[in-house]
């Protein structure tokens, strides 16, 4: 272990590797910042430029882009309610509200701190126990995945508190939209109305840009120009109290993110939603959620970074991609003539440990970069909205076009922008819709697979203790609060009768 670490530091600390690590994380931050352009596209586009490099240098840079993007995605979520990355959608809920109260600096800083802590914790686990964790992860089959996806949906539907029905409605709408396109396993085209562009389904990134960026701009136009936020420098800087308040949230977020990140396919978006949903239930400050609670930023941002790092566990120790971006990275391995697989740790120790140590360095760089920059970015909100909104509109549309080089994407943004605005006007939550759209294909796949495993009988879920436990948890989450309320009422009733007598 110590030998491996020393080897890793020797590899990662060469001037060349340090330089490209720095370049990677900065480029990653910018890519994460731009709506539409995600880390998967970023890594795929920059891949050919790295052929001239040593494999380890190239991978250090490309991985830097990946986790750098997780930091960058937060910035626009907080400032202008436009998530740069799918995993940052849920951050808009409280991050944007914090920004409206002049606390954008604190939100960005806690996101950076949470991301950093989560990254370091998950890296330590990654280095210490990656292979056994990977073995554990493959035990999660279709049945267990189905249970986890259900849990994800239930948590998000119920995190709206009293607005359970509204959350459920929007999640159902998201799931419904997710059925457009070619179905898993059968290859049938559904609800495409002959449009080729819809065969691949309703594209998630464009929907997010429309709902959030365009929807918010339309909403603000109707509400009337708000005064630019004039916050003093004190409010822009994070206070010690903010940090200490957020520590439990960061730790919980890291744990949830790490666990979901190991599972191939679940990914950091689900992790961030689940972390937020759980935080909203257990946090001491839960009443403030949705109104600018710092915990509501700390927890999902920690979760998405932990998940991004945990994604490397199946990737490096089994050669199985943990998510879309790690799939591109695995493709890169082959192009450099490396053989990803269970023996990678043994056959390429310098590469693997150099890469892992570079994650430490990259995350330190990102923290040092993002902390002082947080108040600077927050100053952007001093720009009057009359100037800010055209810029948001322009970057949104360019971002959408960049995803697929296709004008169809722009139409999706426009249509969902209008939908997002209407939903906002009638006070329906957008986040469950987004998660429904993200989870839809995954849930459907798990359902089809579970049915196939059980030869058409979904009762096969009862053969997995793990799935049963998770499903019971789902039921408790749905019915628990109303049962508790009923119990409380009963215990209060005699008191009320008593007071009536008096």
């Amino acid at each position, binding site marked *: 272990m110590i030998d491996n670490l020393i080897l890793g530091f020797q590899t990662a600390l060469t001037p060349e590797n340090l330089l490209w690590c720095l370049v990677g994380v900065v480029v990653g931050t910018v890519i994460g910042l731009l709506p539409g352009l995600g880390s*998967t596209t970023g890594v795929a586009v920059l891949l050919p430029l790295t052929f001239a490099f040593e494999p380890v240098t190239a991978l250090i840079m490309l991985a830097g882009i990946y986790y750098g993007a997780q930091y960058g995605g937060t910035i626009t979520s907080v400032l202008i309610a436009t998530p740069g990355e799918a995993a940052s959608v849920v951050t808009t809920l409280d991050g944007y509200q914090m920004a409206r109260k002049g606390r954008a600096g604190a939100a960005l800083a806690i996101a950076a701190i949470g991301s950093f802590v989560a990254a370091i914790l998950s890296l330590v686990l990654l280095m210490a126990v990656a292979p056994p964790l990977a073995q554990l992860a493959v035990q999660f089959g*279709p049945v267990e995945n189905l249970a986890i996806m259900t849990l994800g949906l239930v948590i998000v539907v119920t995190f709206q508190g009293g607005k359970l029905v509204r959350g459920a409605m929007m999640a159902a709408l998201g799931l419904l939209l997710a059925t457009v396109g070619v179905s898993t396993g059968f290859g049938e085209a559904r609800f495409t109305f002959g449009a*080729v562009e819809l*065969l691949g389904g309703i594209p998630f990134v464009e929907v997010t840009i429309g709902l959030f960026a365009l929807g918010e701009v339309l909403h603000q136009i109707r509400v009337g120009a708000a005064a630019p936020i004039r916050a003093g420098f004190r409010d822009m800087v994070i206070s010690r109290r903010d940090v200490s308040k957020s520590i439990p949230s960061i730790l919980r977020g890291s744990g949830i993110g790490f666990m979901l990140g190991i599972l191939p396919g679940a990914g950091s978006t689900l992790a961030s939603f689940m972390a937020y949903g759980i935080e909203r239930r257990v946090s001491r400050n839960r009443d403030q959620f949705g109104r600018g609670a710092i915990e509501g930023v700390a927890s999902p941002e920690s979760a998405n970074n932990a998940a991004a790092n945990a994604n490397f566990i199946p990737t490096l120790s089994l050669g199985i991609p943990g998510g*879309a971006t790690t799939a591109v990275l695995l493709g890169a391995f082959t*192009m450099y003539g490396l053989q990803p697989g269970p023996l990678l740790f043994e056959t390429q120790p310098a590469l693997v440990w150099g890469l892992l140590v570079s994650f430490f360095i990259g995350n330190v760089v990102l923290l040092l970069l993002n902390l002082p920059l947080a108040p600077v970015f927050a100053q952007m909100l001093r720009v009057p909205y009359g100037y800010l909104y055209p810029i948001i509109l322009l970057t949104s549309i360019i971002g959408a076009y960049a995803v697929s080089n296709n004008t169809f994407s722009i139409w999706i943004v426009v249509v969902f922008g209008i939908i997002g605005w209407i939903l906002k006007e009638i006070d329906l939550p957008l986040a469950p819709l987004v998660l429904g759209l993200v989870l839809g294909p995954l849930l459907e796949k798990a359902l089809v697979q579970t049915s196939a495993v059980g030869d058409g009988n979904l009762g096969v879920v009862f053969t997995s203790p793990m799935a049963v436990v998770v499903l019971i948890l789902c039921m408790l989450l749905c019915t628990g609060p109303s049962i508790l309320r009923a119990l409380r009422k009963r215990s209060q009733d005699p008191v009320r009768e008593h007071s009536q007598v008096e």
Partner: protein
Amino acid sequence: MKSRTNHLAIGAVAAAAVLLAGCSSTGSSAEEFAAPTRATMIVPFAAGGGSDVSGRAVASGLEGVTGLTVTVENREGGAGAVGYSALLGMEGREDVLLASELALVSLPLAQDVSFRSDSFTPIMNLGGDYALLMTAASSEFETCADVVTAAKAERVVTAVTGATGIDEITVSLIEQDQDVEFARVPYESGGEVVAALLGGHVDVAPLNPSEVVGQLESGDLRALCAFTEERYAYEELAAIPTAAEQGIDVAFAQFRGFIAPGGISEDARKYWIEAAEAFADSEQYTDYIESNMMQPNAVYGDEFVAFLDETRADVEAALG
């Protein structure tokens, strides 16, 4: 050194052609073919998959031999339908290519798409990617014949990716040849299937060698047979018997190549075929074939068309 002079020569010719085209563009000879300086390689699948790897290898190979700038563009969705349909809409474009594979043939047979496998201009077939029948190290199966015997008596679960992919076709061919039936669980990528085998969620799965060579080396997965005509020459795979050796008469390959849109000029077709031939002679081609453990089978133009017709007949027979 040789490839560099080659590169320069072609570059110079291309530059001259562009100049000429520029001069004459005011005239009526706009129909005349001018070698492009930039080209796009459409990959109809997501970044990171087998198609993506092949598209990128061809793109950088063509850059090397022609001096063009070839940009790779992933247009994924609908199991390839989105990318191929996009190419259909680019009829006559002489600066666009598409990294093609089995979906070119199987999608029009299985799905309601607007293109047919002869809607395009086939340029080059790179080679064949055969499948191995894989199982977990702890499995009781030792050969493909064992699997078939078991399937006659009980439920044997295999993983397949997509309803028209190479795994589905391979499994269907075994079923037809041996008169058995397998239960199928659908997955979306080779990586997911490897995880399913390791976790014991499926009994067997057909996978390409490049997807499993890591697990073969470590001994976590075992190859039962190869659906090839002859045994592999690659050292890591030479010991794997063919299906035919075990009495199962099935050999089928996923081809990989690239195509241009339909309706391009004869000159343009010739230009791309010449570039493809130069690419096939380069080290990059050999590297691509070997690192992905494919069987080289470089055919161009009309020969590739004939190959596609054969493949279509095979797929039609397999999918019924």
